[in-house]
């Protein structure tokens, strides 16, 4: 018997009807019907009219920027796209393989109109797992015939750190976009985006998520680099719960509620398979910990919390970013050589710098039969000390890597 059946069988002996309760309730209702004075009715009607008029004005201004599935009606085409089964199925594979994520229930949360087309925010429910979403750039998807964008999974929030955001950048038709995607703890009633000039707009919070676009050149690297936009989380009564500047550093470090404790240090500075810059750097944060930041042409990701370097063996994983797949991570101190084995027998030695690894997989190696499948670590004597299979999720048939060009020119 499944959980729903069990719950249905719980307290079933409650009577279907209850004459006494019904009689009392009916009398109470009739007394309201008979005694509501017309003056009171008209006053309430007047208040309702004024409230509705105000709501209409507010909704009109909000809808100029945002179309949301939740709450007030969204334009039919947006609603249709975000709820239609086909669209959800199209997105579901992008969530597959994430811990405790119910990928088949992927669904749209919000849509944002930008000068470079619409941006959709998708999520999938989780069972006590991380919060996962995929931000999709419609125009890129249309051209590629498959979802194009970036996905992220992040932690559930607490009342102590009630808001997180991630900055997503893309260049579409020569226009640079900077999209702020965030989520908020349930204690947050509203989120306001304040411009450096002090102009505020309230962001719709849907399933805890919010999305907004900011000028691409209006996001400084950190607060010393310029005055940023600010996200303000507010409680029901309007009290400010948290305020975060929209900077590149904050966007990545807030994912881990971390505070910077020193300058960033670049460990690997290399190029991807198309010769574009790519780097791995370390950022010290409070508590004696360090975050690892990966920066590629297609975006940036930062991970904190877990030990920066593994104590032994191989902690190198494939990562999908836009249409790129790269392997990154660290190896144990005994590892002198790391080999990437492919399906067709090709073996590539990956450079190791301070025990870190960063390598972009060329598109020619995305095809079945030629993909990387195995990492083998060897010591100074050439003896194998560890091996690890390379996950194939990123290469799946619906993966964003199959969509052609990158997110950006």
């Amino acid at each position, binding site marked *: 018997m499944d*959980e729903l059946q069990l*719950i*249905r069988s719980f307290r079933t002996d409650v009577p*279907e009807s209850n004459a006494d309760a019904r009689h009392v309730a*009916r009398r109470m209702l009739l007394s309201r019907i008979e005694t509501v004075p017309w003056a009171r009715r008209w006053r309430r009607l007047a208040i*309702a009219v004024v409230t509705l008029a105000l709501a209409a004005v507010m909704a009109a201004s909000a809808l100029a920027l945002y179309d949301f599935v*939740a709450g007030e009606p969204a334009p039919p085409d947006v609603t249709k796209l975000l709820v239609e089964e086909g669209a959800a199925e199209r997105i579901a594979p992008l969530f597959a393989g994430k811990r405790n994520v119910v990928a088949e229930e992927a669904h749209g949360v919000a849509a944002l109109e930008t000068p470079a087309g619409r941006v959709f925010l998708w999520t999938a429910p989780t069972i006590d797992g991380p919060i996962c979403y995929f931000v999709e750039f419609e125009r890129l998807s249309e051209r590629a015939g498959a979802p194009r964008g970036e996905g992220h999974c992040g932690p559930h929030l607490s009342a102590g750190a009630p808001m997180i955001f991630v900055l997503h950048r893309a260049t579409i038709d020569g226009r640079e976009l900077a999209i702020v995607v965030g989520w908020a703890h349930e204690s947050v009633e509203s989120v306001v985006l304040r411009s450096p000039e002090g102009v505020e707009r309230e962001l719709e919070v849907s*399933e805890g998520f919010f999305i907004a676009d900011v000028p691409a050149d209006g996001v400084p690297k950190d607060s010393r680099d310029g005055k940023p936009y600010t996200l303000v989380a507010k409680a029901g009564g309007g009290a400010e719960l948290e305020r975060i500047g929209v900077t590149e550093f904050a966007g990545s470090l807030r994912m881990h509620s971390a505070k910077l404790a020193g300058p960033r240090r670049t460990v690997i500075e290399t190029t991807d398979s198309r010769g574009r810059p790519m780097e791995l750097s370390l950022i010290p944060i409070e508590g004696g910990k360090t975050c690892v930041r990966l920066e590629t042409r297609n975006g940036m990701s930062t991970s904190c919390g877990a030990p920066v370097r593994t104590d032994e063996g191989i902690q190198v994983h494939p990562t999908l970013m836009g249409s790129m797949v790269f392997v990154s991570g660290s190896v144990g101190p005994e590892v002198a050589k790391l080999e990437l084995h492919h399906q067709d027998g090709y073996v590539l030695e990956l450079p190791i710098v301070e025990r870190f690894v960063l390598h972009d997989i060329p598109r020619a190696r995305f095809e079945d039969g030629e993909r990387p499948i195995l990492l083998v670590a060897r010591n100074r004597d050439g003896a194998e000390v560890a091996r690890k299979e390379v996950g194939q999720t990123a290469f799946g048939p619906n993966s964003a890597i199959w969509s052609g060009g990158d997110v950006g020119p």
Partner: protein
Amino acid sequence: METTDAEAIAASLSEPRAFVAVFERHFDAIHRYLRRRVGKPIADELAAETFAQAFEHRRRYDPRRPDARPWLYGIAHNLLRHHYRDEERALRAYARTGTDPLQDSVEEAAREGPELAEALAGLSPRERDVLLLVAWAELEYAEVAEALGIPVGTVRSRLNRARGRIRELLERSRQYERETI
């Protein structure tokens, strides 16, 4: 031909007594749902207040929705919010003693009753609301979303979480039982 809820509510704007049809149609279901959650005394009060408030706010009813159940359950939940602690306390008492304090008789406590009570008490009120609106009120996901004023996606995710937690709590409880035996 019987009028829809929407028609009855629309008619009640000029003829208030037309609203009684909505009461007659749905009172028993709403009352039973509330009684299963918080027991007879509180359910009597909340169910009566649900229809009184529905009548007061009937102008806000969306006439495009023929079935008023989601709207009524939404009002009932707004009232129920103040009794979440009572609900949780009763569930925990049931789990602890094996006797449901909400029941008039003690004879038919199901074998899994206390376990389920413990599991339900372990859910957040939001998860419990979604789960019980689906399981007891038999509302569709879209109707639950309408009742609670949340997106359908949130209904799905809360239901998933609730089911997962129920499963986990029941398994844990059975595991404990096995180990104890």
